[in-house]
């Protein structure tokens, strides 16, 4: 790989990880404020444009069940990044998609979540997905 390209990859990877750290960090704070147990974890990702890296993720213990925050990467078809939010073990899922510099929330059918991305939306998603049976 040419040196300039490797440097570009490194800087865009750093930017992406910083972007992820900000949004995942925010979710960790919201979950802790709600009194939930939060375990910060790293998710290994391998992408053509950025190579291998470790992305920040979360495992949250809500009063009902476990809830995971798992980044999938930045090289995504039709988006600039994707983070999956899912309940475990039911695997009900919502999706955070980065488009035009904004995080958009979709349900598991890729339909827009009724509210915009915010603390309230995050808590609502965690509660809704973990309560589904």
């Amino acid at each position: 790989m040419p040196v300039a390209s490797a440097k570009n990859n490194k800087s865009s990877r750093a930017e992406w990880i910083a972007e992820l750290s900000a949004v995942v960090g925010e979710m960790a704070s919201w979950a802790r404020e709600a009194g939930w147990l939060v375990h910060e974890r790293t998710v290994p990702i391998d992408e053509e444009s950025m190579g291998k890296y470790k992305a920040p993720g979360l495992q949250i213990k809500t009063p009902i069940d476990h809830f995971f925050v798992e980044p999938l990467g930045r090289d995504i078809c039709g988006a600039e990044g994707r983070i999956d939010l899912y309940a475990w073990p039911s695997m009900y899922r919502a999706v955070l998609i980065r488009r035009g510099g904004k995080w958009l929330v979709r349900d598991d059918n890729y339909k827009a979540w009724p509210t915009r991305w915010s603390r309230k939306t995050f808590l609502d998603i965690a509660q809704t997905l973990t309560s589904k049976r």
Partner: protein
Amino acid sequence: VKRQAAFSMLAGVWMEYSSAKFAIERVELECRSDPTVLPLKPVRIYPSHLKACLRNLEITYTQRMFSEFEAILRQYWAVLKRGKTRRTLTETLIHRLSAALVISDIIRVQTHAVREYRNQLTHHARNVNAIPLSETIGRLNRFLKFFPPQW
């Protein structure tokens, strides 16, 4: 259709392959000590047929598995398009679904590699980079993971 049913369809093909492989290996071993286990009617089977069958089994099931996968993609695409679909190339279909389901590039690329391998098998291409069936099911399942739970 439920996403779980789609996973089960591919798992079903995998189990058929595993069963066929087990059965042929068993008969092949048995006929080494007793060639009379092979039938004479309605068709006469020779040990060489068993060997050829075993050699091509994975290829046969790769094609079967990909055709089940393709059927799932077409079914979902028809639902997305409310039945108004023309005959779309599988390559295009994978691209369009990847965009609609916001699928990781790496998973899309790996799925295309399976499609290309299937095409090479269909056209009897030589010097192909084989993808083992165990890897094929893994790649196709990873693509299906992005589907909604029901459609």
